[in-house]
């Protein structure tokens, strides 16, 4: 099962150094961080160490800004529901970009059912948010705007600083989902002017089942689930110590290694894009340069994405992703690909490659050759 794994956007291996570090907290200092005995205190210390490491990755004011959650979906829900409901006295208008992750769009849509107004901000053909729409729509009654740092399907990085300036003119809170961006490009909540920021552990090679919400000092949110007083009462429940200790270590490693690793991945990505775009009727999706360094995404005319994924996997042992409708549970094409203006039949032919620490430049010829053969094989079957 070696193969070439190119779906880091969906799932990353846990870095062996993280695994080694975190294991200690599942079998030695495994106590409940709320307990007052020595094992509990050791666990609490580990939890706070992790909080500090995560805070450092994103340039947070202090570790207390970090609320640990069981993943990015929970952090997004806490940010959106927690901020909108807590600050509803200000107004009941919400904004989100059209290409947000489903765990951002769905809480917004649910609030809409509950009486909030929701406007979706369009993006251009390369996936960059239309700042003039944002300017027009962000008003005095807008309580919260969600704009992602970068998109996992098309790789496009948003001009977050500019977004922040616009959103803050009328005092709207800015929520940024940085799940895809953190650990890949520099994210600094203070420089960027972010009020609420979502992070995922697994996306930076930490264990699954852990995430965090950064809450800027002074920003008030309320819990969306209720229980004990853990995480300032905002994310109650006994902490997943193993995963969170690992998340912290993963954040530390990402911070130290990001600059060099991103340069390395960018070189691979550039070579890969050059090769794959030589294929007849192959097109890049997303922005050519304003994009995540490890991210390459394409569409091919006249073929379908699930068939691409299956062929790449079964014939070449290369794992990729697609935004095709046929690979989704709902059979709807990716809302991201439709938002950048692709027709349904174009959106069906998408392929997403996201590189990671185990990939190397020497794999590029094999990947490009496999992609070319896959496209040729499926076009030979296609009546289009």
């Amino acid at each position: 099962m070696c193969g070439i794994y190119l779906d880091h956007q969906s799932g990353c291996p846990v870095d062996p150094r993280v695994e080694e570090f975190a294991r200690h907290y599942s079998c030695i200092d495994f106590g409940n961080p709320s307990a007052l005995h020595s094992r509990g205190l050791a666990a609490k210390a580990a939890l706070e160490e992790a909080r500090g490491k995560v805070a450092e990755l994103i340039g947070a004011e202090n570790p207390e800004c970090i609320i640990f959650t069981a993943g990015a979906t929970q952090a997004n829900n806490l940010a959106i529901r927690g901020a909108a409901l807590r600050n509803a006295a200000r107004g009941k208008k919400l904004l989100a970009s059209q290409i947000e992750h489903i765990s951002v769009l769905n809480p917004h849509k649910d609030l809409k059912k509950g009486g909030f107004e929701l406007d979706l901000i369009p993006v251009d053909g390369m996936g960059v948010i239309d700042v003039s729409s944002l300017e027009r729509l962000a008003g005095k009654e807008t309580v919260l705007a969600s704009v992602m740092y970068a998109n996992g399907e098309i790789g496009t990085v948003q001009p977050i600083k500019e977004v922040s300036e616009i959103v803050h003119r009328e005092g709207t809170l800015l929520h940024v989902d940085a799940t895809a961006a953190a650990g890949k490009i520099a994210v600094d909540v203070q420089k960027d002017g972010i009020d609420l920021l979502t992070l995922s552990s697994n996306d930076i090679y930490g264990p699954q089942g852990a995430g965090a919400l950064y809450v800027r000092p002074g920003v008030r949110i309320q819990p969306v689930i209720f229980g004990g007083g853990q995480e300032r009462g905002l994310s109650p429940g006994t902490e997943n110590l193993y995963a969170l200790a690992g998340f912290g270590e993963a954040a530390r490693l990402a911070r130290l290694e990001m600059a060099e690793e991103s340069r390395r991945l960018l070189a691979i990505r550039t070579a890969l894009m050059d090769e794959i775009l030589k294929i007849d009727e192959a097109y890049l999706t997303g922005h050519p340069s304003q994009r995540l360094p490890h991210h390459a995404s394409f569409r091919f005319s006249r073929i379908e994405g699930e068939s691409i994924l299956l062929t790449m996997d079964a014939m070449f042992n290369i794992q990729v992703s697609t935004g095709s409708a046929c690979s989704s549970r709902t059979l709807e094409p990716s809302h991201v690909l439709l938002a950048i203006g692709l027709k349904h039949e174009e959106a069906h032919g998408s392929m997403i490659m996201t590189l990671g620490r185990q990939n190397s430049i020497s794999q590029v010829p094999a990947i490009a050759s496999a992609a070319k053969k896959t496209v040729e094989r499926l076009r030979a079957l296609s009546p289009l």
Partner: protein
Amino acid sequence: MAQVGYSKKVMEHFMNPKNVGVIDNPDGYGKVGNPVCGDLMEIFIRVKEDKVEDIKFRTFGCGSAIAVSSMVTEMAMGKPLDEAMKITKKDVADELDGLPPQKMHCSNLGADALHAAIKDYWVKIGKIKPEEAKPESHEGEEGESCGT
């Protein structure tokens, strides 16, 4: 345990599809689906002594759409037309050891394309009237939603 992903048989037919291609001047031709919905299938038949003497397909679509096309052509090959006409979407799905629930509509396409090709032949030889050859399902027609 619930089945994870496609059956082995679906993958076999997807990876090594049978009867791919076109028949020049076919006796019957059927085309169903819509690229907007992510699948389009065409089937060509050659008829001899009221039997499917040869059959070919071309499909744009997902793994199950391609596997279904391959399977339905295998099932129809050599069969009397009346019998081939009785092949149902369920027969095709069963022969493939099942399809994931959200992919069952793909099996419609295979049977529909086969039936359309047979009816096209029957219209040509005057066995049925053109209006009797209209498609059985409305998969992917303009203005309708895709999927099941």
